[in-house]
């Protein structure tokens, strides 16, 4: 089953490029650490999922590149082509001459309707190239104008045009101390709109990834490229083929469907956080060894304590007494209650790994049994040179605090009416803002009361 990726705006296109590079590098590596048959099966599954073949024999990414100004797309296209290992379809992009100016309203109300037909034509063409369409992944930031505003509009169009397809939005949350001054407005508008048309939002926060680059990867002068490569690695660890529960019967034929089925049991809860361990500089890899029990233990504590990475985990945080039903107001502070969790293990000796600790009922809300709330996918094929790697996709209170912070700052600004004239001139009124705030306060409330 194939996935069509829609890259939106500067961030979406820069990250999308790193994602395809990472996927390609992974399947061509000689570090599979598994049987030849397994490796070939993995490569075929990945290729079918993300690429198609042309006579030139260089795989072509199943992607549509969208931006309102041309510089980033032309750079992305040429960098990919010059790699020699894969490329984009040179027709599968849409750009204009002038960007959205960090204005969500411009992206959503002006560029969206104006270019809807052209964009959806491109998407349709990519969809038709798939034997079986498994769904869409959109990559976008929510701080700017195109990725956020046009991204929200395109997601709606995807939902209308493909009502039965799965849509996963990969959303990048900006640095807290600002990349764009109106980022909180743009974020509130984006998240509330996506909540209505997307199936799930898989979130990466720039602050978190930045810390990983600084502390785990030991990069001295961190560039956006470094940040994007970590994001691509983490996303790849989720999207690359695995065996789902019940394993042995070949790689999952419905990756997005499986993901959403396991993680989004209730439409009110669509925010997914992602953690991946271990994470380190490539040159350190040959010198490190990990054990599965160690990795699982760390990953579980990261989940419980809402840790951003495997260093600095607060080991004091403990789940409430197992088996007892405690109302949320009495639960220990800092404890992360989950709705559903998915652990994906890749690499050596996965079969025997014990994941019982993740099935502890005290980790979860009371309205799902741990058997339903927790799932594990495994594959013996190692990912991206990591002999063992474990990814956690979590629908839990991971993102509650960051979301609350963004809504708080946006509300603060809204109360003073600053910058509103920039949005009203493109058709987004104060009432529209209020609707969006209401939607998100509702989401915050729902997650808080788990």
């Amino acid at each position, binding site marked *: 089953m194939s996935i069509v990726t829609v890259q939106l705006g500067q961030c979406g296109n820069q990250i999308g490029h790193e994602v395809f590079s990472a996927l390609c590098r992974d399947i061509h590596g000689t570090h599979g650490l598994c049987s030849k048959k397994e490796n070939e099966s993995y490569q075929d599954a990945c290729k079918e999922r993300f690429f198609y073949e042309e006579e030139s024999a260089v795989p072509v990414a199943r992607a549509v590149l969208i931006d309102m100004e041309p510089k980033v797309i032309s750079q992305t296209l040429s960098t990919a082509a010059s790699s020699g290992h894969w490329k984009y379809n040179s027709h599968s992009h849409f750009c204009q001459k002038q960007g959205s100016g960090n204005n969500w309203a411009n992206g959503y109300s002006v560029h969206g309707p104006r270019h809807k037909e052209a964009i959806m034509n491109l998407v349709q063409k990519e969809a038709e190239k798939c034997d079986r369409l498994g769904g869409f992944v959109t990559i976008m930031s929510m701080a700017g104008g195109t990725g956020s505003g046009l991204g929200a509009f395109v997601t709606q169009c995807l939902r209308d045009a493909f009502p039965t397809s799965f849509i996963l939005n990969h959303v990048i949350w900006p640095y807290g101390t600002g990349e764009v001054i109106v980022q909180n407005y743009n974020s509130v508008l984006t998240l509330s709109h996506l909540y209505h048309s997307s199936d799930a939002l898989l979130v990466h926060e720039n602050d978190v990834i930045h810390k990983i680059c600084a502390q785990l990867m030991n990069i001295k002068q961190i560039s956006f490229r470094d940040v994007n490569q970590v994001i691509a690695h983490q996303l790849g660890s989720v999207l690359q083929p695995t065996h789902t529960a019940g394993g042995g019967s070949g790689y999952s034929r419905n990756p997005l469907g499986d993901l959403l089925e396991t993680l989004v049991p209730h439409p009110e809860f669509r925010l997914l956080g992602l953690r991946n361990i271990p994470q380190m500089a490539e040159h350190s890899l040959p010198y490190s060894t990990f054990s599965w029990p160690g990795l699982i233990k760390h990953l579980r504590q990261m989940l419980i304590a809402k840790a951003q990475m495997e260093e600095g985990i607060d080991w004091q945080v403990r789940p409430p007494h197992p088996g007892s039903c405690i109302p949320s107001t009495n639960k220990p502070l800092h404890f992360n209650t989950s709705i559903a969790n998915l652990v994906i293990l890749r690499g050596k000796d996965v079969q025997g790994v014990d994941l019982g600790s993740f099935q502890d009922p005290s980790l979860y809300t009371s309205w799902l049994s741990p058997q339903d709330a927790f799932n594990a996918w495994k594959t013996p094929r190692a990912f991206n040179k990591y002999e063992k790697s474990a990814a956690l996709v979590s629908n839990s209170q991971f993102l509650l605090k960051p979301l609350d912070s963004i809504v708080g*700052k946006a509300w603060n600004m809204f109360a003073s009416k600053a910058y509103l004239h920039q949005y009203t001139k493109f058709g987004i009124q104060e009432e529209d803002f209020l609707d969006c705030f209401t939607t998100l306060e509702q989401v915050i409330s729902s997650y808080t009361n788990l």
Partner: protein
Amino acid sequence: MTQAVVVQVGQCGNQVGCRFWDLALREHAAVNKKGIYDEALSSFFRNIDTRNVDNGPDIYKGKICSLKARALLIDMEEGVVNEILQGPLRDVFDSKQLITDVSGSGNNWAVGHKRYGCQYRENIVEKLRKTAEHCDCLQCFFIIHSMGGGTGSGLGTFVLNLLEEEFPEVYRFVTSVYPSGEDDVITSPYNSVLAMKELNEHADCVLPIENESLFEIVNKINQMSNSGKLGTTVKPNSLVTSSAGSAKTLQEKPFDAMNNIVANLLLNLTSSARFEGSLNMDLNEISMNLVPFPRLHYLVSSLTPLYTLADVNVPPRRLDQMFSDAFNRDHQLIQADPKHSLYLACALLVRGNVQVSDLRRNIERLKPSLHFVSWNQEGWKTGLCSVPPVGHSHSLLALANNTCVKPTFIELKDRFMKLYKKKAHLHHYLQIDGMEQSCFSEAISSLSDLIEEYNELDATKGGPRIDPSRLKIAV
């Protein structure tokens, strides 16, 4: 890729503009080694076939044939424009881009705005239309003028009005040189305040510049270059004031160094729109992020570094120093101290070999010493452009929407009132057709209102921070 058109009005506007075009050519020559007419060049220049000057279409791709600036040169005296046309830049402009007269405006805003405005209106509109037609996607007009005289101030703001009427969708960035206290034009306060009303109402963003600040910066650089201290040999073409390496080979004129600073400001402002980078910042983003309320669109700018030392081993300390300097009062292009006033918003446009971690580290470091308004505590807009300016490995342009502009406006108002109370020189203005006493009272009222808005914001500085209560959801 979008295009921008520069409209330079009056003596000051044209002299600064001339420096701008010179340095723009130098910058593109340094980046564009193959002589191909690329998109970056097209933002400010057209590529035409000199054989068909009048009727030939522009050449959009391929080798550079002949570059023409996307500019309109307006002056009511001929001296400055003629000099440009006889100088090394003469091939960059063509006669269809000029509007001149002979007698000048006599340092009288009313003559510039009302008399010449009326007289040349159609001519100006037609030439603007022509320039716009040559643009694939016109994003922005840059007006360069001074506030204290007659043409730049009066006719310049008339053109601003016209631009809003004829091209409402295109951004209007105005670079305005404000008169200093010891200005030798007696009526400069009148001219400036009358012009301010127009800027308040019709500009999207204004970058105020004061000659005193430019002068101090030039002095600082001269002291540095001449001090002869060990390790202080400065690379000549790196000076923010220098024309080294550009077309101009004649003796530099006294204002050239100061005008080069303003030219560099405009180049840095547009760099991210022209060249690639990991976090692009287009011109429409500047207006979006830095203007929280329509009338508060005055941006204090600072450029660093002022020069690059010839010493190649640039320690990382120097990079951080660049960020610190940008907030230093000595580096601001007007007489203001943003550090001790209130920030409404701040933009940092970095060029060259600087990464996001450098940016973040410095923002974290400098934030505690700056005062931001309560509803915009993290009000930073950042941009990273990979292409550094000529002679530098990296540079920074800081744009601040800060209440530190208030003193400049208050002083202007005071100087205006001194003259106005005595009705000094008023008759020179009132005798012009279309000019009435109400023009003056409206203008001073507009300025007072603006000052009041800044006062209100300043009053919130340092006070207790009470966040508005959030929406409550029934559980």
